[in-house]
């Protein structure tokens, strides 16, 4: 056990901190809004230009070949400096790991740098109106044609779909197949003929989702990821691997916990005395996640199977995020309900906005009910039924 950072890691941290403190933009409007989106893109391009967009990627794709520990350090520093949610995150965190593992060299070269540079924005196309938690029940289909596939059907809850250029998702390519079989992982151009995108606003009123309709849109063979019919296996292969970590780094939650402590210091004289303990509890939530991640990452470095850790992590971060924000809202009391546009909104309304975002945590990426089933069945070995 050695919990000190190497000189190289410390140097990496110092460099990241210095650059981020100098460059992180303040008070950007929300990413999911008309006015905020171009400013976020600009920030992504700046990150990429200085090789901070995808630190763990190969240099040829714009990265720094950072170790996983360095990646954790970067994340800590990014959120410590107040960096905004990443506009490229669905690409670099959800799709890229699969492209690295299953893409051809040609696909990697064509897709990854443009994704990291925010020249091409990706959205996911997992859910369908009838397929939420039960992903394997999807029915959007890909019909085999000369040189490619024609798509029919509908995807929904495509995060930031209206701002995106491309969509990745599973399509039923074998019409006789059922459940997990006969699905193909396709990369779809949202500007192509036969694709239409309809915005769906989120709880907080921002334009966060899209529905995407396919009416015979064509996808060439070069945009199949992995083997046709193997989509399920390919999509699942990267959940629970080291990449399972990437979307929810401890840095983000620790930064929120530290902001909560700041908030407590401002309200300590007037707030309910019991909130003192709640703030402490929130910090221990974030600290537990940080320390758990260190252990997990060590197992990854040892090439040990990480297994269903990702389900435990998902439960922990999603429920912690709700508690963190609930505590903040209780601290600010009657100011909690104010919209960001209110002159007296605390911290620009970020806590209510953050709460609404946090509430999606237990729902997306596999509801927490599903995660608890997974833990019970795969880790504890309880019978499926």
């Amino acid at each position, binding site marked *: 056990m050695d919990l000190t950072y190497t000189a190289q890691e410390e140097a990496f941290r110092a460099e990241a901190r210095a650059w981020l403190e100098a460059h992180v933009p303040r008070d950007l409007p929300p990413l999911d809004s008309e006015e905020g989106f171009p400013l976020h893109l600009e920030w992504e391009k700046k990150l990429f230009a200085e090789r901070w967009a995808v630190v763990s990627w190969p240099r040829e794709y714009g990265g720094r070949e950072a170790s996983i520990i360095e990646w954790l350090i970067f994340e800590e520093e990014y959120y410590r400096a107040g960096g905004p949610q990443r506009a490229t995150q669905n690409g670099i965190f959800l799709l890229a790991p699969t492209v690295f593992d299953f893409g051809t060299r040609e696909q990697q070269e064509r897709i990854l740098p443009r994704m990291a540079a925010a020249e091409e924005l990706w959205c996911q196309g997992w859910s369908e109106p009838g397929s939420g938690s039960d992903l394997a029940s999807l029915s959007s289909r890909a019909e085999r044609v000369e040189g490619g596939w024609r798509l029919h059907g509908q995807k929904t809850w495509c995060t930031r779909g209206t701002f995106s250029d491309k969509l990745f998702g599973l399509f039923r390519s074998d019409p006789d197949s059922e459940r997990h079989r006969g699905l193909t992982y396709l990369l779809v151009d949202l500007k192509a003929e036969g694709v239409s995108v309809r915005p769906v606003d*989120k*709880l907080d009123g921002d334009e966060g989702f899209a529905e995407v309709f396919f009416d015979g849109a064509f996808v060439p063979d070069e945009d199949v990821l992995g083997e046709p019919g193997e989509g399920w296996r390919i999509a699942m292969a990267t959940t629970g691997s080291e990449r399972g970590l990437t979307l929810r780094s401890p840095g983000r939650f620790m930064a929120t916990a530290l902001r909560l402590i700041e908030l407590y210091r401002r309200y300590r004289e007037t707030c309910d005395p019991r909130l003192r303990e709640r703030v402490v509890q929130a910090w221990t939530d974030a600290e537990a996640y940080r320390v758990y991640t260190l252990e997990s990452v060590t197992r990854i470095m040892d090439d040990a199977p990480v297994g269903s850790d990702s389900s435990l992590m998902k439960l922990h971060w999603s429920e912690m995020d709700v508690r963190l924000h609930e505590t903040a809202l209780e601290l600010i009391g009657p100011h909690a*309900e104010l919209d960001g546009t209110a002159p*007296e909104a605390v911290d620009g309304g970020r806590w209510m906005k953050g709460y609404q975002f946090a509430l999606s945590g237990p729902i997306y990426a596999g*509801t927490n009910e599903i995660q*608890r089933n997974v833990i019970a069945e795969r880790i504890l070995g309880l019978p499926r039924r």
Partner: protein
Amino acid sequence: MRFAFSEEQRLFQEALAGMLAEQCPPEAVAEAWNGDSGRIPGLWAKLAEMGVVGLSVPEAHGGLGLDQLDWVLLLQEAGRAALPEPLLETSAVAAPLLSELGGELANEWLPRIAAGEAVVALGLDPAPWVADAHEADLFLLQAGDEIHALSPQEVRATAQPSVDGARRLFRVEWEPSERTRAAAGEGGRELLALTLDRAALGAAAQLVGLARAMLDRSVDYAKKREQFGQAIGAFQAVKHQLSDALLQIEFARPLVAHAAYTLVHDWYTRSRDVSTAKARASDAALQCAKTALQCHGAIGYSFEYPLHLWMKRSWSLAAAHGDAAWHRSRLAKLLLD
């Protein structure tokens, strides 16, 4: 000992529920939130016609002369429908306060309230905000132990938009003066305490209705939505969340009626009972909001689906007139010190 509403009270509730089902569907609520006033055009007049707006206005002033107990079921329905009208502040709280203040103030304003022609904004501790200032004809504002009555011209109101689009909140600045003073001293203190209890209780009643509406909608959705080859409502995890939501509601609901009774009869337990009701109704609504969203999944998170209207209204009313922590802290003083 008889813990039940009267047949008459039930019938009034049903009538209001029926009217709101027609006049205040979710689409109308959503539209109201986006509108300038936050209201559904024409609905206030219909409520006045029905007698709801003037429920607490004495008969001599054109109202029904009823009391807080008669409000309970009606405010539950208002909550259930997420009614975007100033029923709580103007009708359930300001009207009885004006009666108690009496004199010119009562004579001038009560008939107008009953007729649906006047909206009253209230500025009461511990809330820093004044709701409805954009449309108020009269402001009743607290300064220490005093109550002051002011015209819209005598206050400066700065909008403080809430996530609840129908609760138009404002920071109101004003100067107390002898001319504006309506009550002071011991009398002022007592009236303010009673008024706060009425307001908190009214919010609690609405929260019970909101919670129930969110639960009912979730139950309906869980019966229809299928995943993994069955209705999600057949999964034990969903069942248990919804059962817990019902449990919270059912053990808050009678507390609201109980507090209304002790308020009307001015039992010495009045404030204790109101705080108990408001604390538990707030908790119930906040829990139901989370449960409803979780059982709906992504659809509940979309702006097009109306669940968020109920959720935001719950967040707002749970905070209004003392949140659960404020009321439990008041309870602690009453019970423990």
